[in-house]
């Protein structure tokens, strides 16, 4: 029973690691950023999973309902999503500039150019 209840977390972990893998293994700068956002999105899912209470509903108070899911992780994740999109925007801006000054967005080509210089 215990193991079944954790199944969801495991899926999240696998997703998380996929994102992480994209970040560290890919040479393309945009792909790295995409990997980063997948990584972060999976962390968000982790938080939201732990907020769930069986039988509860969304934390908007109403007379007729007595169990709610935990609102605190929701708040944290709202903040974290915003932080995430801010990071993504900045990262993409950097990629655009890199592309303009190097003419490529592949990590190895950039390194090769740097070594020549």
């Amino acid at each position, binding site marked *: 029973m215990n193991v079944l209840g954790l199944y969801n977390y*495991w899926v999240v972990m696998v997703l998380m690691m996929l994102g992480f893998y994209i970040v560290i293994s890919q040479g393309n700068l945009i792909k790295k950023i995409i990997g980063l956002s997948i990584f972060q999105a999976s962390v968000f899912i982790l938080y939201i999973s732990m907020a769930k209470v069986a039988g509860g509903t969304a934390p908007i*108070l109403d007379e007729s309902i007595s169990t709610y*899911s935990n609102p605190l992780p929701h708040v944290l994740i709202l903040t974290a999503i915003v932080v995430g999109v801010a990071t993504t925007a900045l990262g993409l801006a950097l990629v655009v500039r890199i592309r303009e000054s190097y003419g490529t967005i592949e990590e190895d080509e950039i390194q090769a150019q740097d070594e020549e210089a």
Partner: protein
Amino acid sequence: MTAVAVVLMRDLFAVVMLTGIYSLLSASFFVVFDAVDVAFTEAAVGAGISTLLMLSTLTLTGRYAKESTQKPWLALAIVTVTGALLIYGTLDMPTIGSASAPIHQHVAPRYLNDSMQEIAVPNVVTSVLASYRGYDTLGESFVIFTAGIGVLALLMVLQRRRASDVDAHGPMHQHLILRIVAKILIPLILLFALYVQFHGDYGPGGGFQAGVIFAAAIILYSMLFGLSAARQTISQPLIFALSAVGVLLYGGVGVACMLLGGNYLDYDALAEDPVAGQHLGILLVELGVGITVASVMIIIFFTFNGRSLSERGRRR
């Protein structure tokens, strides 16, 4: 699921679209898990804004990735170790949905039980966000402001090189139907943004989501009618000023609370009656967040696209 494909695909464009789907999926998941506010944000941000940004970037950088030449074994090893550690960590976790888990016992009950008396806002997420943990949200709006600053500092082009001739007809002038439909829809979208802004106390929504929707409407306009047309409607310095006004409004509310004798961001001090003070405080703060987010999103998008226009101008 989707993520696997992202690793494999070389066409960056397809990858971006799949990321959009991934984010939609996770948003649906959030709805199922009761996190409606989060789903709202994720839909607007993950599927909307991020995708738009990535597409704008692709316009500037080209869309095909090279085959990865690096040896993935080291990466794979690191990932496996980290993953194994995480799985190991899950073994002791409380099962999903069990109401006896510590997080449901310790701090959260107070929000659910007492916020009605203390703040009287039915949406607990809003009251925690804007009042109990209002300072986090202040930090958050400053983070988004920082991103705006960063993008500006990196990509701002001088106004001289505006290359407006490229854009004279607007980029999609041949899509007549699109333009007409959009003309009808944009006011509706703006109205909806206002609804989300001020209805956040009772249902999902609030300053952040409203800001994103508002920005989306403007972005839609600029996509269909051209950047220079959009810039004429909303002048650059005005948005710059607005983005600063938004964060200053938030911070200023805090300072006002302090001057009125409370602690920083203690909205009780804003009015005679604490509950009324909380209402006023949350309203102002959400407004601040909304203004900042909308203007920063518009700034980021305009800056990206202004860059691409001037790039093309140079290439000619």
